[in-house]
Every structure is written in C-alpha cells, then in structure tokens.
C-alpha cells in the first residue's frame, strides 16, 4: 500500500504542471500624448524583435512604455532606430525590419508601413512632401514620397550612409561605416553634387544657428585614427572648423545642438558641451558618467533640458535621465531595452519640470 502511494505521488508530480499567469496589461493609452513630451525609441536587441516606443509626458511627469504594441497589438519591429514628425504623422524607421512605420501622431495608430528599403537608418525632410532615407548596407539613399508614403526613387552615392541634415536645399549625407566622407545632394534635382572629406567614421551631424554643418567623426572602432569634430560651410563645401580629439581612445558620439543652435553636446566619458565658437574641445564633461552607460542624448529645444538614455547592460530595460541645462539630474525613468533616439514634441510657453 505504502509503495503504491509513493508511485501515485510520483506520477501526480510527473504529470502536473504549474501554470503561471502572464504579466498584467500595460497602461491604456488615454490621451497621454500631449503637446509636451519626448518620444523614445527603444532599439531592443539586434535580431530579437524587442524594440518598442516610449513616451515621456512633461505634463503628467510620467513615462509610458511599449506604446506601439499596446495600440496596434503587434510589435514595432527589430531595431527601431530613428523617427521623424511630418504633418499628422510620425515616421519610425525600423532598421533591421527594413521598414518605416507610419503612425498617427496623437492616437499612435498605424497608418501604413513603407517597405522596399535596405537597412534604413535616418529620415530627413528634403522638400515639401519628400524625404531621404539613409542606408547602412546599400550604396544609395532612398527617396520617400510623403504624400503616398511609398518609395519613389533612389540616389546612388556609391557608399553606405548614416546621418543626414538638410540646409539651403542641400542634403548632407555622412558615410559612417569605415567611411570618411560627407556627400552633398541637391534636393531640388536629387543629384549628388559634391563630397567633403572629413575624419574617420562621421557618426552624427547637426546644423548650428550660423548654418554651419557640424560633423562628429568618432575615429573608427579600431582606434587607429583620432576622432574629429569638423564644421562644413554649406555654401563653399569646405571645412571651416576642425577640432581633433587629444587621445586615440576618445570615441565621441551622438552630436546634438541646443534650441538656440549655439551650443553643441556630445557623449564622451560623460556628456560634454561647448559653444560653437569655442577654440578648443571641452576638457571636462558637464555631466560625469557616474556608472551610466550613456547611449543617446537629446536637448529640449525649449527649456534646454539635457536628456540622456542609459542602455544599462543592453539586456535589461534602460533608463531615461533628465538633467537641467546646468547638468543637475531632475528625474529618471525606466524605459524599454536600449533606449535610443529621442524626439521632442514640445511647445514654447509650457511649463516643463
């Protein structure tokens, strides 16, 4: 009898399975996208498809994660990398899913999906209803018709491309991966008209209030050349300013400008800032890294907040850090995995704390 009980107990243990309920529902989307906030694209892990969209509301001082999936009931995709506002739409470039998700800027509902892209990276407005998309693995820049939300053509630049800015009907396109050139495209004709040789691996670009195109070249991951920060005159296409970083180990990234366009910010062992007319690179960071792994930064164009993302260990959820213009931490919030691109939707006149 006792042995039978032992067998019965073992059998029950063998065939029984403990079911555990899944996580509870995410906060519903109820008018959370206000006129003052920050969209954050969480890139997720390459190949894992766990990228997501986060929104931080200045009005409610709350953060809302995983919004695209909550609204549209499907994942955003693999490595959402950059975003762009145009009219009533938000365009989200999803790099490894090779698509652009077009969503309504209030409801966040999907409007359409643009496909036919090769490893898209950044989107820049290049005309009334036209945008250019750079590509990490193809030798051309795709043209997007923003009325039809379709690919309407391409411009062969014979190299891969990364960051892009447009000024005076010229698009400046950086050849990042092992490159050292910035290509210039006439946005009225969609023709490649010139190129400028810069430092190795131009990673990010901004335009300052004097119209100078600033290019941050990180020197390449092999660390065999010095990083550089150069300013290109958009009329003459010559390099008007050049700052060379003092150590081979310096690997700056994510160049940003403030709302006035007279101060530059970038990540290098913390967050550094410099006036555009400064003679030298800053010796010390404005914000030390304090064990943070700063991944991307953005500057609030209205109140000057320095907003940074911390990618933690690239596996767990990251953190959004909001500093005031003097570099004092105001607040921090948990985001999705590898929080990257920051896009501000802010209006002047609002109180933003």
């Amino acid at each position, binding site marked *: 009898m006792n*042995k039978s009980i*032992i*067998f019965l107990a*073992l*059998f029950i*243990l*063998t*065939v*029984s*399975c*403990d*079911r*555990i309920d*899944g*996580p509870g529902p995410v906060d519903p989307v109820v008018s959370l996208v206000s006129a003052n906030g920050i969209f954050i694209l969480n890139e997720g892990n390459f*190949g*894992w*498809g*766990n990228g997501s969209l986060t929104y931080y509301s200045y009005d409610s001082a709350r953060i809302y994660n995983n919004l695209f999936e909550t609204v*549209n009931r*499907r*994942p955003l*995709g*693999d490595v959402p990398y950059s975003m762009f506002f145009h009219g009533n739409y938000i365009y989200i470039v*999803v790099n*490894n*899913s*090779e*698509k652009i998700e077009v969503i309504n800027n209030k409801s966040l509902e*999907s409007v359409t*999906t643009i*496909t036919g892209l*090769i*490893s898209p990276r950044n989107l820049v407005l290049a005309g009334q209803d036209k945008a250019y998309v750079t590509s990490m*693995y193809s030798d051309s820049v795709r043209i997007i018709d923003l009325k039809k939300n379709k690919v309407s053509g391409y411009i062969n630049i014979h190299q891969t491309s990364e960051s892009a800015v447009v000024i005076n009907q010229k698009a400046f396109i950086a050849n990042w991966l092992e490159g050292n050139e910035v290509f210039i495209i006439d946005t009225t004709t969609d023709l490649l008209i010139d190129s400028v040789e810069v430092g190795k691996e131009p990673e990010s670009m901004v335009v300052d209030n004097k119209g100078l195109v600033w290019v941050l070249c*990180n020197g390449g*991951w092999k*660390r065999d050349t010095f990083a550089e920060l150069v300013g290109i005159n958009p009329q003459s296409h010559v390099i008007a300013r050049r700052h060379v970083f003092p150590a081979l*180990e310096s*690997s700056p*990234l994510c160049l940003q400008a403030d709302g006035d366009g007279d101060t530059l910010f970038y990540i290098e062992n913390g967050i550094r800032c410099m006036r555009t007319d400064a003679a030298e690179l800053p010796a010390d960071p404005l914000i030390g890294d304090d064990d943070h*792994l700063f991944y991307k930064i953005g500057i609030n164009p209205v109140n000057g907040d320095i907003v940074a993302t911390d*990618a*933690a*260990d*690239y*596996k*767990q*959820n990251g953190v959004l850090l909001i500093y005031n213009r003097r570099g004092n931490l105001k607040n921090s919030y948990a985001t999705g*995995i590898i929080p990257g691109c920051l896009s501000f939707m802010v209006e002047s006149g609002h109180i933003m704390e």
Partner: protein
Amino acid sequence: MKINILCAFILVALPLQSQQDTVKISEIIIRSKQIPSDIPGFKRIEIDSAIQDKYRHLSFSELLSECTPVFIKSYGYGGAATSSFRGAGASHTRMTWNGININSPMLGQSDFSLITPGISDNITLSYGGASIIDGPGGFGGTINLENKPVWSKTSGLYLNTGAGSFGRYAGSLKFRTGNESFQTVTRLYMNSSENNFPYINEVAGNDHVRETRKNSQLTQISFLQELYYRKASGVLSALIWYNSTSRNLPGSMLVVQSGPDEKQYDESLRSFLGYDLKKGNMNFFLNGAWMASRLDYTSLKASIDSRNLANTFTLNGGFETMIKNHSKIKLTISDELSFIKSNNYNKNISYNSSSLTLSARSKINNRVGTTFLIREIIDGQILLIPDFSAGFEYRLFAGEEHFFKTGLTRNSRIPSLNDRYWYPGGNSNLKNEYAWQYEAGFKTSRSFTNSLSADAEITFYTNLIRDMIQWKPGEFAYWTAENIGKVNSSGIESIVSVKYETDPLNIRLNAGYSYTKSVSRNQADEPGQLMYIPENQANSSIHISYGDLYLFWITDFTGKRYITADNTGYLPDYFLNNIIIGLKPDLWKKISADINFRTENLFNKSYQTIAYHPQPGRAYFISLSVRILK
C-alpha cells in the same frame, strides 16, 4: 530476511550458471547484491532504445526536445539548436562522443542540429554532478554518444529511406560484419530539406498574412566508419566520423525576406583511436582523437564573411582497478590541445589544457554505494582550484529497490576560445567559471507481475554558478567578455516509466516532468527567471506494439519562456504531439522491414522556441527500413 535474500540470490544465480555466456552471469550476480547505480548518488539515464530508433534519421535536437528534460532553443528544423540543461546555459552542456569532448573549442558549446542520433548506438544523459565523471564543465549535464561493437559472426545490412512534408528527404545505410575478434560497422546518413512551410505572420504589418517561410534549405551528410579488433583481453577501436551541413538561415518574421542572406556551412572530421586492456583486476585504457571542424558563415546584408577552422587533439590514458569486488579506483590523465585559425581572431591561436582525475566507487554491501572524485586542471599555465565530487546512495529497505541518493560537486569550466580571443572584445585574462552543485533524490523500481514493472525517480537539485562569463558593453564601441555572472538554478525532476510486456502485446510508458528556477544573482540584474529557460517542462511517450504493428505517441509540453530580462515579455507555453504508426513484418527468413508513418505536430499548433522564428505546423513523414541479417 537474510535467508530470503540468500534464496533469491541462489534462485537467480543457479539457472544462469547453465548459460554459456559467463560474462552475463557475473553481471547479474553483482546487481542482485549491490545497488545498481553506475554513479552512486547521481543521476545518469540512457535514452530508451525504442525512442532512439524512431529518431535515427532525424536531428538530435528533435530527440532531446521531445523526449528529455533538456530544453532546446532552436531556430527551426535544420536551424542552429542549443541546449539548457537544469537551467544552465548552452555552454554548460558538455557533449561527448565515446567520452571525447566534441563541444566546439571556439564556441564552447554544441549545435545539436548537426548531429544525427543514428550515428551512435547508445545515448546517455548525465545530470548535473554526474557529468563531472566524464570531464569538467558540464554544469547542466553531459550527453554522451557511444559506439560499441557487437561481437558476433552475424552480418547485418540496414537500409532506410523516407520522405515528408516541406521537401524533406532522408536516407541511411548501416552495414555491420565481422566475427568474435573483428568487427566493422559503416554508417551513412543523408538528409535534405527545402523547408518551405506556411505560417500566419501576425506581427509584420497591420494585417495577419499567410506567408511561406523560405530560405531555410538544408543538406546534411554524415558518415561513420568503425573498426574493432579484439585479441585476448585487449580491444583496439578505430573510428572516423565525417559530417557536413550546408544551410540557409532564415531571418526573423519581423524582417522582410527578399532572398537568401545568411548561410552557414559546418564541416567536421573526427577520428578516434583507442586501446583497452584487461589484466587481472586492472583495466588499462589509452585513447586519442583528432577533430577538425570548419564553420563558415556569410551574411550579404551585414557584409560578414566569417571563416573559422579548429583542430583539436585529445589524449586520455589511465587505469581502473577493482578492490575486493566492491570498490573501484580509476586514474585518468587527459590533455586537449586546440589550434584555431579564424578571421575573427587577430592571430592564429593554440591552447592547451590538461587534467588529472582520481575517482573511486564503492558498493560495500547491498545497501550502500559511494562515489568520490577529485580533479586537478591545468588551464594553459594556470593550476585551477581542484574540483571534487562526492555521492552517497542508500537502499532504504534490504532486498527492495528503493534508494535515497545525494551528491555534492564542485565543477569548473574553462572559458571558450571565443571568450578569450574574439577580436574585438575577447579577454585573455578570463578566469574559469565554477559551480557548486547539490542534489538529492529518491529512486524506486518494482515488478508487480512477470509482465508489469515500473520505475520512478525524483530529484531535487541546486546549482550555484559563479564567475560566469558574460559579454558586457565595454568602454568603446564593442562588448567584452568578463567573469561577472552569478546564477542560481534549482529545480525538481521526476521520471516514471512503466512496462507491460507479454506476447504479442507490449506497452512502454515514459513520462517526465521538470521544474526549473534559474535566476541571476547579480545586483544590477532583474530578479526574475532567466530568459529562454522554461520553468515547467514535461514529456511523455507511449509505445504500444501488438505483433508486427506498433504505435508510438510522444507528447511534449514546454512552459512559458520569458524573452525579456524583466519578465514582461514571454513566449506562451505549448503542447506538441507526434504520432508514429508502423508495421514491422518479417519478410523472409532473416529479412525484415519497418514501414512507418509519422505525423509531427499532430494538432497543428502554432509555436516558437525563439521569438519571431516560426516553427512548422502539422507535417508528415513516411519511412521504409529493411534489415537483412546473415
């Protein structure tokens, strides 16, 4: 009570004395006196030969995932497949072939999709602490593929061919001949699959779209030649195993696939030469292996052209001696030397590790069994802290098959060569990982009648893995390997098997359930279950044969697996059912056939083992085997 045991012993022993095979007699007598476990205190099982036979031409990953508690993370049929054993990582499963470590020296792990189960005669799973007997590093366990000769004058030719859904074709040949002093066995397996299958894509766009999974073609060839020579009390073994697998790797469902992008070619040549000599109470052994393995991976989109070639030489030697019929002492010296040529390293690498192992096993009376092991490893030039293992097993009631067992182990794992030399990010200063492992269990078996018998086993275990190697973001734009991980795994495993054997009806039921809790103990990490390790897993199989007819039904349950560190995202649990119906008629004298029809994923369950990589729905496979003996 003692008189009863003596009577039972005499009843068992006397009839056997009239048999001609004296070796078998002595084995049975020993079992009736001593506890039966090979490794007292620990758990080692053999995969049921009937199950192994049904997976002979399939991949090893399917066999493990459907019939064992080892969780297999697979990209789909033919795609890369890695394991999690007792909640540990893929590199903590040690894969051996006749005792020789065949984990890739670069990756430190095995891709189970590259191995055909039919290549071996016997498959054993050594759980947790039991794995240290075979070598270091198997914190989760060790899986051994064994080839062994059958010393008879009978020759046999086994042919198999099959075809199935999604353009799958398989064929195999096995030929065995020889006599009582020489045996040769030749095996050849071929496998190809177009692997295009339909699935519903619910994630790529706003509409659910019926798509066809493409770009996962597979071609696989395996060849094994075995030669055995026996003279007096010595056996010489020579084996050579060639394997090549060429495949396209499909991307995620989230990526629009325009054509084949990622391709992988794996090729390996493994040779083994061994000599075993029995002299009185001493067994001497000396074996060596040379293994060359190539892994080429290309991705057009990512401009990756990765070329890797590893050559590994392994040498094992030692002796085992019996003391007073109840104890064995074994001394083993091992050396493993690897040469790596890879365009992912900035120079060619050679690396050597060696070890000295002393183990003892004792079964002092019919109630107690003990195991003890101590091992010293030299990792390159560094002497590691010695590993050890101690096991204890006790028969609870004299003359009955109820056993309590417990074991404690300290095990070390040397970093993989990618961890040390990958460029950039490899860290040549890495220390070894180590684990403290404790387990305790209860095992019982009982014959209810001459026809009906049952076995059951339940085990509790806990593993504390320390200095675990993890790749973390470095100061610059690449990741580096560091000894920063701390993982605690614990769980319960239970197995029940029931046999009912009469003529012509035979029924065999196997069922297993495992609960695994595996968490990171790093302060900065989320406290939840580690990603891709299911807490609950169960499998069962029933094999019913009536004369020439048979039915084999396998059910496999895989619990929820988290895909984010904070446990907010997960893949849902699933049940899979496979059913095989077959007929094994004797065609003519010594010619027999086996024709069977296999239905996989019987209820057409939609599931994924890796997020956004769909698995096929219902699939069919028909197979015909012919066996000719002479």
